[in-house]
Every structure is written in C-alpha cells, then in structure tokens.
C-alpha cells in the first residue's frame, strides 16, 4: 500500500513546495516595493546597478539585435516575395520588431546575462553571510540590495528594449539596402505605414513586466541557492529557465491584454 501512496506523497510535496515558492516570490516583491520611499536615499547604489545591468549589456544586445533585425527582414521579404509590394517588408519588420522581437529578445538575453548574474551574486552573498551581516548591522537587505537592483531592472530592461528595437530596425535596413534591393525610402515608408504608437508603447510595457520577472526570479533563486559552487550553478540555471518560461507566458497574457 505504501508504494502506491508514494507518488501521491511526492506530488503533494512538490505542489506544496511550488505554492511556497510562489508565496516567497510575491513576498520578495512586496518587501522590495515597501522600500520604494528610499529610492533616492542611496541612489549611488542604483546607478551602479544600472551600469551593471544596462550599460554593460549593450555590446551583447548590439550583436543580437542587429542580426535578429536582419533575419526578420530577410524572412519577411522571402515569405512575401511576389505577393505584396516591397514597402511592406519595412511594415512587417517594424511591426514584428516593436511588438514582439525587441521586447522578447531583449528580455531573454538579459535573463541569461544579468538574471543569472543576480542569482549568483545573491547566492554567494548569502553563503558568505553578507546578507546576515546587513541584518545584524540593522540594515534592511531589501533596501540596500534588492531595491537598487529592482530599480535597475525596471528602468534598464525597457531602455535596452528601445535600443534593441532601433538596432534591429537598422539591421533590417542594412539587409534591405545591401542584399534585398529595397531602397532606404521604400523601407522607411513601409515602416511608417500602419505604424501605431501603441506598438511601441506595448513593447515598453512588456519590457517593464519582463524586468520585474527577471529581478524577482533572480533574487528568489539567489536567496534559495544551495551550498557551494554546485548550488550557485544550479541557481543560475534555474533563474534562466524559470524567467524564460515566465517571460513567454507573461508575453502571451500581455499581448491578449494590450491588443484586445
């Protein structure tokens, strides 16, 4: 009988752990939001994080965005060749990039680059008792560690998304001019055609939500990292996997919400 109950026990245990994990993620977010009144008190810490999250990610985004823009444009031209006028290549590229490719690509790249770094940093601080040291000194770790990172993520992910959008559109333009025999004028007018400010705005809103997701999951996995190199390694992997999945799920719901 016991062996029959084992799967039930295992499933129940996993379910409880999952619910506890969701609860902890929500609590991290609440505790961080509670420190928002201190935003400008230690703003130097936030600036440092913004440089680490944002500025240092630009070179990587430069490469990924330019090439994504190029691929998207080539595919748009290839799929609709002989079906629609050339100017619609610019329209398709602009719509794709602003609504989906830019925000999603930026978020996934940042989940891999800075989300994993956040988990590794917090995990290693926890193991070295630095988090306890903050508490013992009467300093709230959420105010000094979580808040600057949270602000950096919610500001820099949308900002980087805008940069990524621009770079991808430039990539599309380059490939049009150099390989597809489409003029700058045609590409540019195509981009303007059917352009809706909501496309850009929705992309930025999405990026903001993705920034929150990467931060909160990075912090959560850092706080719950196991001991040693293996524990920290596992935490970094978990944050990339979980935030990538959550970004894609959130993207679906946001699309349904913003474009209904």
């Amino acid at each position, binding site marked *: 009988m016991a062996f029959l109950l084992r799967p039930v026990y295992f499933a129940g245990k996993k379910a409880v752990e999952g619910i506890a994990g969701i609860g902890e993620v929500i609590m991290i977010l609440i505790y961080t939001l509670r420190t928002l009144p201190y935003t400008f008190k230690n703003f130097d810490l936030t600036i440092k994080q913004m440089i680490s999250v944002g500025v240092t990610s630009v070179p990587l985004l430069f490469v990924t965005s330019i090439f994504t823009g190029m691929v998207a444009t080539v595919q748009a031209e290839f799929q609709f060749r002989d079906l629609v006028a050339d100017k619609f290549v610019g329209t398709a590229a602009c719509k794709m990039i602003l609504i989906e490719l830019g925000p999603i690509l930026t978020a996934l790249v940042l989940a891999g680059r800075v989300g994993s770094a956040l988990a590794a940093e917090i995990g290693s601080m926890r193991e*070295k008792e*630095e988090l306890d040291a903050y508490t*013992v*000194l*009467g300093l709230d770790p959420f105010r000094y560690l979580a808040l600057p990172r949270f602000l950096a993520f919610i500001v820099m992910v949308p900002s980087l998304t805008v940069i990524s959008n621009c770079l991808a559109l430039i990539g599309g333009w380059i490939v049009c001019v150099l390989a597809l025999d489409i003029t700058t004028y045609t590409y540019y007018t195509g981009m303007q055609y059917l352009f809706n400010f909501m496309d850009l705005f929705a992309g930025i809103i999405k990026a903001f939500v993705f920034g929150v997701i990467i931060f909160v999951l990075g912090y959560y996995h850092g706080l719950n990292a196991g001991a040693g190199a293996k524990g920290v390694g596992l935490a970094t992997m978990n944050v990339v996997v979980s935030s990538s999945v959550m970004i894609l799920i959130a993207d679906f719901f946001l699309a349904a919400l913003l474009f209904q």
Partner: protein
Amino acid sequence: MPNVKIDPNDIMIELRGLKKSFGKQNVLLDINLDIRRGETMVIIGQSGGGKSVILKHMIGLLQPDGGTVTVDGTTISTPKFFDTRTIRKKMGMLFQMGALFDSMDTGENIAFALREHHPELSEKEVQAVVTEKLKLINLIPEFRTKMPSELSGGMRKRVALARAIALSPEILLYDEPTTGLDPITSDVINDLIIDMQEKLGVTSVVVTHDMVSAFKVADRIAMLYKGRIIEVGTVEEIKNTTNPFVKQFITGQRKISTEIHPVED
C-alpha cells in the same frame, strides 16, 4: 583570562528552554543559559552541533521553535513573537568568514552602517570613527582603502571586528573567530577579544571549538552536547571537570572512557 569585575546577578542574555529544528533534524533540544553583563562566555561543542544556531538566536537571525530569548531584560523572540529591532543596535557580530561587503573597501565596510544610522554625523566625523576603530584593532588608517579581496583571513576578521564595533555595541558575538587561522594570528584575535571586553566593557559570547582560544578569552565556558548545555563553569572548573563528555572534548580524545551518558536523547 580577562580581568573584569562581573556581577553574577546582572544577566545580559537569558536563554530559556530554547528549541530549534531544521526539517527532521533537531538541533537545539532545550538550551538554558545565562550570560552575565560584561563577561566573556565561550560556548564549546562539536562542529555542526548547533553553537552558531544559538548565536543566531541571540541576535535575532533565527526565531526559536520553543523557549525564549531575553536580551538586557527585553524578550526579543519566542515562537509567537519576534521583534529584534530594539536590540540590534546593542549588538555586533563577527561572522565566521568575516562577511565583509565585497563591493566596498575596508573604510566603507566600517563606515556604511554608521552613516546610515547616524546621518547627523559629518563625513569628517565618520572618518574619525573609522580611524578610531581601525586603531582599536591595531590596524593603520591606510588600511581603509584596501578591498576585502586584498586582505588575508586574519585581516578580514579584524576588519569585520572593526565593523562590528563601529556602532559601539554593548554585546559582541563571535562565530568561530579563530577558525582557519594560524596559531599566531589566532592569538592576535584572542587578544582583540580580550581588548574589546576590557576597553569597551562589552559582553561577549564566543562560539568555538578551539580550546586554546576558549581557555584564553573565557570568563566562563558552556559545553553544548546533543542539543543541550551539559556544563557551565569557569575555565578552572571546566579544566577540572568530571563530566566525561566535557573531558573528552577539551582533551580532544576520540574515544570516551566511560559508559555514563550525561543527557537523555
């Protein structure tokens, strides 16, 4: 042994019936311990036995599953109540690995909490405190620009001690202060522990399994064994103990010479 007058009736930290488990592992079963104002109490016991867990209860990093923790007459935690804000500024802690903030230099590590808790202090005054604390731990002021990664194990602990005393606490907790250090550096740390007690008048609790250190710094020693404090006494009393488990521990014997079991599991 330090040379400080201690009133045996003036209790600074009181642990009553302290219980703590992590999952299925019962770490603390029933801890009862009084730490007098101004004394250095050393808690000895095997690695992984729960010594650091006791320390973390005293400073409010952990909440007990049973029992109470009272600091300077104020109950700070029970299983149903937990408020450590009142005692935080009274206490400082030296962590096992120092736990220095890696992204800040030595001076910043010492000054950070000071600036946050005393915004009324000018930068000049903050730097004066940093210099004073560095002097107290026998480090020259030029050390303030060193990053934690540039410091040796012993130096890191000294800087961590300077950070712990930056807010002038009344109680200092030391978690394995000499672990991982060579005997000479260990002795430097021991002298600093005694200095802190004599110069600052702090109540100290030291958790260690280094008996040389324990005998040097302690006013009294408490032995933790299987989740209970099985003996408390002065250095002489502990050295002359008849308890076989304490005797075994302080002499570092692997096998015990008696079948008598001092505690019930």
